[in-house]
């Protein structure tokens, strides 16, 4: 029988050594806790502070840089709730509001790909739910090591299977995302999950514990030992430490196990509780579990809470206060409920077979107090845990940037003739990062809920919100680690530009931004420089495009040993579509239509897919973002699509015009013939920003030309759709069947066929 480390005992045993370092706290941080409390922390308090002050929960290294998102955000009447909430909330009109956020689950997905990715989906869904919204779709931005590396063969199928398992069973359509490969992600894959939810304006919920006497109810799953220390140990340490058996990971599974069926019940239960007006405050339990939910609710509310930890339903009776506080068991929520509504609350939970327990009440004492077996084990000012330390980490531009910049891709040999151009295009189309992604997306349900208008491989996911009016939302995520490695400021703006452009290509108007900033160790000044540049780039870019950042997530320590991943900010853009029935996709249809290239093309190959795939080269400068041009292009696309002038639109990004044309041909099953000006190589493979290719609806050519001119967007007729090959006059022709074969065979060849072998009829 172990002795309970009570507050009284802590006060009486001042000098007792405590394992703060093992829990991820520095000596300075430990001293700060002692100074705050005026005594040493109890074991439970130490556990609570360690998870709350972890990098993952406290944003202690990133906070000073993230502040500029709010400081420089363009004024937006659409923003109903901004940074600092579980997720930002955006007004999309007709009394609808949308909330969306992207979050990382990188480290768990390396340790246990299936459950790591699955619980990543579950966690972000609960964030959206906690805002009062019904979750309506998910997306995933994935990056892995080399496609042919044996470990990628372990990690990728597990991650995809986990997302498939959790998202499909939960009933949320998966409407898009990204898949890319690079050696820098070997040993550190990126699994970023986005969720979007829809609500009415009046449905917004708050994460605060107000009204002394109100009851605190924990509902959903029971609390077990899974994920104990996940936030502090895993997400704040490199794999070199964790995988080689840090004491925590040796003792317990650091990755949580997901139960999507329970999450589905929890979603329906919460929405019924919200509709009944039974909740005054709500918080999801994610990283740092009960510790985080109680401190954040108390810190945001009227200042105090009393929690009886004995009342927490356990699935392992041996857990004590520190483990209960740190557990990251999934599918749990915490609500604040007026005493007179508790019976109704519990009745709704019973209807949905969701376990619920009153574990405490709101007080006006200004303290977060927790008891265990009748003794006080936690007694802290909640804001001291919720606010956490703030670090100004040293940053330094690494000298290696100069060498990288000097490696100008202009030196690379270019294809000499049409046959060479043809070969390079096929090499790009068959490369793992650009190949057909059906192997992945076919494992996801994109149809459930019946409102999916566009999904992968279209430029953005597009959802119908209102069946009567056609109001909808478009979402895209983009990131490019190669661009960001060359220049994190410009690379981040390019990611923002691409997501913004992808949303616009459906006919939607971009409204708001979320981001998941994936970087190496913040204790490395070179990484910290990358991070600071990326944050500055995003803030400046959002200001220029007139779209605010509404929330996001930072993932540090993405590195193996001392080798950090490419800096990889993943940017999600949300747009509103006035009438999804007028949307266009990327596919060329079988009606002949003029093809128009929009935007300016220059010889920009730094970080390009062509340099990467055809030469294994990374160097020079990334393409120059042109945010004014992006705005003009997006406005043109929205206007042209609203007027019904376009039959197809596809943004130009990785692989340039060549890859875009091939994708549009394959998507619609119709070929095209294009005539290119003087330098076909540059026109085909450059990755200049702010460009799109559109198919103009027959009869609308003049109107579209005038509209493009009015918007100041350069528009060049380059050919027309039709036929069954992709033909570049004077250069090459590729039959669609050959394009399709090259495009579709790569991922099945790497990761196994989706269909069984030919079924032999008897």
């Amino acid at each position: 029988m172990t002795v309970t480390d009570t507050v009284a005992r802590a006060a009486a045993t001042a000098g007792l050594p405590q394992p703060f370092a093992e829990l991820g706290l520095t000596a300075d941080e430990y001293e700060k806790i002692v100074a705050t409390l005026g005594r040493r922390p109890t074991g439970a308090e130490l556990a609570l502070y360690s998870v709350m002050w972890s990098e993952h929960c406290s944003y202690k290294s990133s906070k000073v840089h993230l502040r500029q998102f709010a400081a420089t955000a363009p004024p937006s009447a659409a923003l109903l709730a901004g940074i600092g909430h579980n997720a930002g909330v955006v007004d999309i009109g007709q009394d609808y509001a949308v909330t969306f956020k992207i979050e990382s689950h990188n480290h768990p997905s390396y340790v246990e790909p299936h459950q790591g990715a699955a619980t990543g989906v579950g966690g972000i869904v609960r964030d959206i739910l906690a805002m009062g919204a019904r979750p309506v779709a998910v997306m995933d931005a994935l990056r892995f090591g080399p496609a042919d590396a044996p470990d990628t063969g372990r990690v990728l199928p597990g991650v995809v299977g986990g997302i498939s398992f959790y998202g499909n069973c939960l009933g949320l359509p998966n409407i898009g995302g990204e898949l890319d490969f690079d050696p820098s992600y070997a040993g550190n894959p990126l699994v970023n999950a986005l969720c979007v939810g829809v609500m009415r304006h009046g449905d917004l919920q708050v994460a605060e514990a107000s009204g002394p006497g109100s009851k605190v109810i924990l509902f959903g799953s029971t609390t077990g030992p899974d994920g104990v220390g996940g936030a502090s140990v895993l997400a704040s340490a490199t794999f070199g430490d964790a995988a080689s058996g840090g004491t925590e990971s040796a003792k317990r599974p650091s990755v949580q196990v997901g139960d999507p069926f329970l999450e589905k019940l929890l979603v329906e239960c919460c929405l019924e509780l919200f509709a009944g007006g039974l909740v005054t405050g709500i918080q999801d339990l994610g990283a740092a579990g009960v510790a985080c939910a109680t401190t954040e609710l108390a810190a945001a509310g009227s200042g105090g809470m009393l929690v009886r930890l004995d009342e927490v339903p356990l699935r392992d009776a041996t857990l004590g206060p520190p483990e209960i506080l740190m557990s990251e068991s999934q599918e749990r929520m915490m609500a604040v409920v007026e005493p007179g509504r508790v019976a109704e609350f519990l009745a709704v939970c019973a209807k949905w077979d969701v376990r619920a327990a009153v574990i405490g009440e709101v007080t006006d004492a200004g303290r977060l107090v927790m008891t265990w077996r009748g003794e006080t084990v936690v007694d802290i000012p909640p804001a001291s845990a919720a606010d956490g330390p703030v670090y100004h980490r040293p940053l330094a531009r690494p000298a290696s940037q100069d060498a990288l910049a000097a490696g100008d891709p202009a030196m690379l040999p270019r294809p000499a003739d049409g046959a060479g151009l043809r070969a390079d295009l096929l090499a790009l189309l068959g490369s793992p990062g650009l190949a057909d992604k059906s192997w992945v997306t076919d494992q996801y349900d994109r149809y459930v809920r019946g409102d999916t208008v566009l999904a992968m491989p279209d430029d953005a996911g597009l959802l119908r919100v209102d069946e009567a009016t056609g109001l909808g939302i478009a979402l895209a995520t983009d990131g490019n680690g190669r661009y960001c490695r060359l220049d994190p400021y410009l690379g981040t703006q390019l990611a923002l530009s691409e997501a913004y452009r992808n949303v616009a290509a459906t006919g939607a108007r971009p409204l708001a931004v979320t981001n998941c900033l994936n970087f190496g160790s913040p204790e490395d000044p070179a990484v910290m420089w990358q991070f600071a540049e990326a944050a500055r780039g995003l803030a400046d870019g959002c200001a220029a495009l007139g779209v605010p950042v509404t929330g996001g997530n930072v993932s540090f320590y993405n590195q193996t040993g001392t080798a950090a991943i490419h800096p990889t900010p993943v940017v999600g853009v949300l747009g509103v579509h006035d009438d999804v029935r007028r949307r266009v996709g990327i596919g060329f249809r079988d009606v002949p239509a003029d093809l128009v290239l929009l935007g300016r093309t220059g010889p920009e190959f730094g970080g390009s897919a062509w340099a990467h795939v055809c030469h294994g080269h990374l160097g020079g400068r990334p393409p120059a973002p042109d945010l004014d041009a992006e705005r003009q292009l997006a406005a043109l696309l929205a206007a042209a699509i609203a007027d019904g002038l376009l039959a197809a639109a596809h943004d130009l990004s990785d692989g340039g015009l060549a890859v875009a044309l091939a994708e549009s041909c394959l998507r619609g099953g119709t070929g095209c013939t294009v005539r290119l000006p003087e330098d076909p190589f540059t026109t085909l493979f450059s990755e200049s920003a702010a460009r799109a290719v559109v198919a103009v609806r027959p009869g609308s050519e003049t109107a579209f030309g005038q509209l493009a001119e009015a918007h100041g967007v350069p528009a060049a007729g380059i050919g027309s759709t039709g036929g069954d090959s992709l033909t570049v006059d004077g250069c090459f022709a590729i039959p669609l069947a050959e394009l399709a074969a090259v495009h579709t065979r790569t991922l099945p060849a790497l990761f196994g066929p989706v269909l069984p072998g030919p079924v032999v009829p008897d």
Partner: protein
Amino acid sequence: MRIGVITFPGSLDDRDAARAVRLAGAEPVGLWHGDRGLRGVDAVILPGGFSYGDYLRCGAIARFAPVMADLVPAARAGLPVLGICNGFQILCEAHLLPGALTRNAGLKFITRDVPLRVENAGTAWTRAYSGGEQIVVPLKSGEGAYAADAGTLADLEASGQVVIRYAGDNPNGSADAIAGVCNAEGTVVGLMPHPEHAVDPLTGPSADGLGFFASVLARVAA
């Protein structure tokens, strides 16, 4: 015309089935798994999803839901019943339909638009089609491989109880490429593909699935 749509814990496509019923011109009526009685509906749909998480054999728990105690005798007495995906699995578990659904041959969940051939256009749920007609409807399942013993398969073929068949590649290893079957009377139909996701070209690959819902309207009206 009132068509019930049952919601079990973990049902996911109940909203879509109700929309399909509405687009076909009938009134959808929500039925709750835990309630007794069928609220006087003229037909019932068991929608897709993961009832009870499919943690046990798919449909094996849902078949014991209170509402099933009323549904099973009503179905045996001629009430038109359509089970889609998880609903098909539940109907098999409840022995309203022969056979069983097993893991896809590729061992992965797959979503794809599949071409189907209507083999029996005489059932309560397919009479809006013509025999041999080809349609395109989404398939999305991890345990969609239809299985039955050789005698049962021969009987199904002989009696016209194979309602639809995969017309392209057999996507999941189903016996004889069977995508849907019916009871001997043609009133109870189970489908692995999801016609409720093919009721509007805006949100599906086609509107080919609407015929299933229109069929039962015609029958109930007759």
